[in-house]
């Protein structure tokens, strides 16, 4: 589903943000990306939807080599992904429904299909009753669940989450992580950046550990 082969990311102003990164995520797998702040977790995640391009190395998503994708192909790549952010990144002037509908509107779905799919996604994160509310009127946990609904509404094969529980208290974090495990059970591939080691160890999934831009050798679970 996702493969990194000897990937480097170098910024002109600083050294290597990522160096010699190689790993593979099989379809239906769930993995955590951990490491201290500044280890390169966010940078790694930014390379997959081509928010940035790697300096060296090769990344494939669903068998497609990202180096071969031009500017016009990027939107189609991103429609194959579900993105979840630490700060939720919801549109405050739109209702929960409209926020979740966004990927479908972008993909050009019709209004009836949008209504059906958005309600299904909101039902999955247990927010069906709040579809007419605005994000600011919701708690942090609820806002992140809206973000998750938005990430799954177009049924992407791969979901990327960058510190999805970074702004939430432990109880809400656990709730969100359980939601991820549930998604994984129905076949979604997930890569989740998090430094919440306690929570990760309890979930018992695969862990990719970054340190100063390099991937530590993986321990067999």
């Amino acid at each position, binding site marked *: 589903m996702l493969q990194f082969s000897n990937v480097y990311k170098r910024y002109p102003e600083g050294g290597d943000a990522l160096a010699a990164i190689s790993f593979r995520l099989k379809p239906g797998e769930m993995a955590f990306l951990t490491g201290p702040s500044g280890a390169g977790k966010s940078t790694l995640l930014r390379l997959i939807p081509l928010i*940035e391009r790697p300096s060296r190395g090769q990344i494939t998503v669903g068998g497609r080599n990202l180096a071969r994708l031009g500017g016009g192909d990027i939107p189609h790549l991103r429609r194959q992904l579900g993105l979840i952010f630490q700060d939720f*990144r919801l*549109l405050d002037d739109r209702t929960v429904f409209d926020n979740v509908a966004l990927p479908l509107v972008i993909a050009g779905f019709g209004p009836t299909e949008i209504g059906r799919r958005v309600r299904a996604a909101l039902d999955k994160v247990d927010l069906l009753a709040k579809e007419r509310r605005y994000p600011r009127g919701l708690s942090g946990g609820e806002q992140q669940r809206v973000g998750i609904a938005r990430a799954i509404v177009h049924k992407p094969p791969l979901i990327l989450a960058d510190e999805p529980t970074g702004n939430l208290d432990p109880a809400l974090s656990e709730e969100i992580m359980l939601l991820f495990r549930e998604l994984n059970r129905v076949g979604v591939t997930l890569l989740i950046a998090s430094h919440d080691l306690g929570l990760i160890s309890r979930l018992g999934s695969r862990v990719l550990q970054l340190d100063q831009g390099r991937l530590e050798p993986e321990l067999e679970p």
Partner: protein
Amino acid sequence: MTRRRLPRSSRRSSNRLLRWFAALPWVQRLENYFFMHAHLLVASLGRLYRTPVASSLTVLVIAIALTLPAGFHALVDNLGRAGAQLEATNRISVFLKPEIVNEVGSRIARKLAEHPQVQEARLITKEEGLREFQRYSGFGEALRLLDFNPLPAVVAVAPKDSLSRPEDVERLLQDLRGIDEADLVQMDTDWMHKLSAILRIAGRTVGLLDILLALAVLLIVSNTIRLELHDRQEEIAITKLMGATDAFVRRPFLYTGFWYGFGGGLLAWLLMTLLLLLLDTPVTRLAQLYGADIQLQFLSAGKSLGLLLGAAGLGIGGAWGVVDHHLRRMAPS
């Protein structure tokens, strides 16, 4: 009875056809596409409506920028029309040979009045001519020194349709020059040439003004859209992350630009019409003083449509430029 049964069965099959047609993937895509555009058209107007003061100020500035060239167009149009009208009141003067007496002159005038290209022909006798000359020329004293009247009799001829059929007037002039008793045939077209030269300069000035103010509208719209882009930066970033194409991001701004331009154009048209209405009475009075029957002409349907479409186009163009610039900066490095 048969009339009732037949349509029902055909209606059923046509319904089935319609449903089959509507279920075709490309028909659905097309339907969704049109739905999206209709939605954006309304939504962008709604967005402007939510910031009424800022939006109306922008529209007003655009309208004023557009009223200027539209006003000049109307002015030049009307001047041209007025010139044509005045030309229609133009006279041909047929100076008769000095030895021709008034009786012969009036016979010639009567004969000329029957000419198909002649509206009116009137004799100005030698004596009338002298009186007028003394009154208006300032040479009255000098004339008194002469013991005879040096002025010839003149037939004043008003041609028909001098503007629309200049070649007929030309032919009439030929005919008049062929009269044995005529010494000199003169049509004063000098001022017409001057007017047309002035109109040409005015026309070119208006053309330049059009370009300058179109540029102004373009800049007003781009600047307004640039501010809006700034306000909606996060929204654009998020939609791009969700896989929006540049066209998708651009579209709502193009509609906003369209509304700015179209609204400005519409308001400019209204201002223009109001201006002409206010000027109508005084202009008519002035024209009457010159003996012309001039009606102030409002913007034609074609020019009105041109104004609206041009303004809308400028709005879209201004938005396009600035959004494109913004999107190019967002491309991944």
